[in-house]
């Protein structure tokens, strides 16, 4: 087969469907049985075929490989293979493609449908009285949309009981209220869908995979988005669990052949039984991974510190728009571990991080300090002192020194702009 020139440039619109060879793309990509789905798929095929200068026989359009991935509510479309490849393809083919920003009419229609689906789902969610603290994805097999925290009723109930026993019900109520407000805001945001939300959403879905790949361009990427009104892409990694992990058939080795420190991590994952060594290396190159769920084996010790955080302290400043005063300790601690640590002022020496984590701080602290001029985080070069595992006196704020708002900020998935704490996070919340 001929090598696809567009693929080499990173802009093949057919992705997996392409009849030309995509060198080193998806190992499991070939030979999948795909089901024909809506006509919009075929329409898109036809259009894009005209766009490309490659002549493809018309019989190609009969087999629509996208399957049910873009279909809205066909209940029987459980083909996770097709969904998976669809995700990957879109990420691959459209990420750097100018085509993506100026789509054809069919592409626009798809997006419109997709966005309409989201609006509809939001309306249903609001009116149905269903559980609000749930991850959400607009279509099955897509990564979850950011901005929704996933909390199970049991976790919430446990927090309630814990607060009851510590006589601190008010802070529980406050945090619930805050969580609810955030949910409501997010739902409204998705219902009204102004341009920036749309862009964020579409990138959530399309770049679900790409977020993993940018060689910890994640660091810089995060810098860029942090200051912007667009939702921080960081949690998408977590949310994008199904996508980021090599899904579908046993392809546990990540098929992201892009070489990023991150992509290497999942390959190590199958062998993670009980040993963490693969991950020791990861954080040093990819600080953001500390939160990313696809990087399993993130280290039990770290999880310990994160999970041991107890909700008891009234200070609950959430970590970003999710702001849910952190019951799911690991989850909350995740993002905290990344940006929170040194960047937010007052920290002098990074204690208690251990060697992997320490590397991660330096790039972050720099990038964060750069973006946050309002903060007194002048400690751009955080002297990383490895090894000490005690709760750092200057590096981490003990919980009781944090206000409720700050603790909540740290404990949620993302910082809320305007509420980002100036103090470093408590060590218990860190999840490296």
């Amino acid at each position: 087969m001929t090598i696809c020139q567009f693929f080499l440039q990173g802009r093949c619109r057919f992705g997996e469907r392409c009849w030309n060879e995509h060198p080193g793309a998806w190992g499991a990509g070939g030979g999948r049985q795909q089901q024909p789905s809506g006509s919009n798929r075929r329409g898109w095929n036809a259009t894009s075929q005209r766009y490309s200068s490659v002549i493809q026989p018309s019989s190609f359009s009969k087999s629509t490989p996208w399957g049910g991935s873009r279909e809205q509510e066909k209940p029987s479309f459980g083909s996770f293979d097709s969904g998976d490849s669809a995700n990957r393809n879109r990420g691959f083919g459209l990420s750097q493609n100018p085509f993506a920003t100026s789509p054809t009419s069919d592409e626009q229609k798809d997006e419109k449908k997709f966005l309409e689906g989201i609006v509809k789902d939001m309306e249903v969610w609001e009116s149905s009285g269903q559980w609000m603290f749930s991850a959400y994805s607009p279509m099955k097999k897509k990564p979850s949309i950011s901005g929704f925290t996933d909390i199970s009723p049991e976790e919430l109930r446990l927090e309630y009981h814990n607060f009851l026993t510590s006589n601190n019900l008010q802070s529980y109520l406050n945090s619930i209220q805050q969580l609810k407000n955030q949910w409501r805001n997010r739902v409204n945001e998705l219902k009204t869908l102004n341009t920036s939300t749309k862009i964020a959403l579409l990138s959530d879905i399309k770049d679900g995979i790409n977020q993993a790949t940018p060689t910890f361009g994640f660091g810089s990427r995060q810098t860029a988005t942090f200051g912007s009104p667009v939702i921080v892409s960081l949690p998408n990694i977590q949310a994008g669990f199904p996508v980021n992990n090599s899904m579908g058939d046993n392809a546990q080795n990540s098929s992201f052949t892009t070489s990023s420190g991150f992509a290497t991590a999942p390959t190590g994952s199958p062998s993670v039984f009980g040993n963490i060594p693969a991950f020791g290396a990861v954080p040093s190159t990819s600080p953001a991974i500390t939160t990313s769920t696809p990087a399993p084996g993130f280290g039990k010790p770290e999880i310990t510190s994160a999970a041991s955080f107890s909700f008891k302290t009234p200070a609950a400043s959430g970590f970003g728009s999710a702001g849910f005063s952190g019951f799911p300790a690991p989850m909350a601690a995740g993002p905290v571990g990344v940006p929170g640590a040194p960047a937010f002022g007052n920290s002098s020496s990074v204690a208690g991080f251990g060697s992997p984590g320490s590397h991660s701080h330096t790039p972050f602290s720099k990038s964060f300090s750069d973006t946050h001029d309002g903060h007194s985080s002048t400690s751009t070069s955080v002297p990383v002192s490895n090894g000490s595992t005690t709760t750092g006196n200057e590096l981490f704020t003990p919980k009781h020194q944090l206000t409720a708002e700050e603790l909540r900020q740290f404990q949620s998935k993302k910082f809320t702009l305007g509420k980002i704490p100036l103090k470093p996070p408590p060590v218990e919340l860190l999840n490296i």
Partner: protein
Amino acid sequence: MSLFGTTSGFGTGGTSMFGSTTTDNHNPMKDIEVTSSPDDSIGCLSFSPPTLPGNFLIAGSWANDVRCWEVQDSGQTIPKAQQMHTGPVLDVCWSDDGSKVFTASCDKTAKMWDLNSNQAIQIAQHDAPVKTIHWIKAPNYSCVMTGSWDKTLKFWDTRSSNPMMVLQLPERCYCADMIYPMAVVATAERGLIVYQLENQPSEFRRIESPLKHQHRCVAIFKDKQNKPTGFALGSIEGRVAIHYINPPNPAKDNFTFKCHRSNGTNTSAPQDIYAVNGIAFHPVHGTLATVGSDGRFSFWDKDARTKLKTSEQLDQPISACCFNHNGNIFAYASSYDWSKGHEFYNPQKKNYIFLRNAAEELKPRNKK
């Protein structure tokens, strides 16, 4: 202020749904009520395996206790014993020989309860509440599998305080099921992983969630040859996904269906959507039961893709369900599942476990 808008509250001071003062609908199905039911919400139910003569029911509750009843064929339930944890009990399971019960609790430990001696010892330790516990009996090993909110899946030889194996999960474990040689774990953030347990537990596949919302419960089903072949996954959005591991035709064989929703005035009007709290497969017929936050249970035939029966609405959510080993008894627990937050929690409200004869109602629709 109601957490969830206009839906009618459940535990609000005993206002009967059906308006009658003489009958309260805590048992509209007129099923057998288990005596001495727990004082707080029941999180998990489990019947004894076939190796034990008779039927014994174990229930773990948010009152930190695990209770055991003997269920006689007459329907009489005799409380037998009880053990305590220091935190709410989230999951229970039996060993294959029926001599031990394993309990998982919010106190981050799991215990092994020897029923003969009525002693319970700790066999597992996590860094966060233990959400699921299963006993694995493989030809070459036996162990306890615990899934926790600390994002790990640990395997324990009950004799050692160190786990035999630790597998990392992408997120907090929300539910799991195990039928040798397959285990399924559903995690937060819509994570879904299948494990194969032959030789030693290892990750078999990570699956993209067929559901759009939070995973709540999962149950494995078997094929005609009695081998585990797929699972049913329930979410908080009143939907269950039936998923086969290696189907001949994934797009056709895998499907989702809606359940535990109110009808509303008509199908296009907003309906109330309730979480699916538990799924259980009938051990003989292969049909499944789902229980939801709406206080109903439903029986379904997944092969015929039809609903077999839906119950009347109880006044409380149904938080757990279980079949006994031969499928004659269907047990379900009526207690508050926190689906509407703390505002609807009424500690005074009585919690029930009901037993229903399941031999007839769960027969599959089409018999070949």
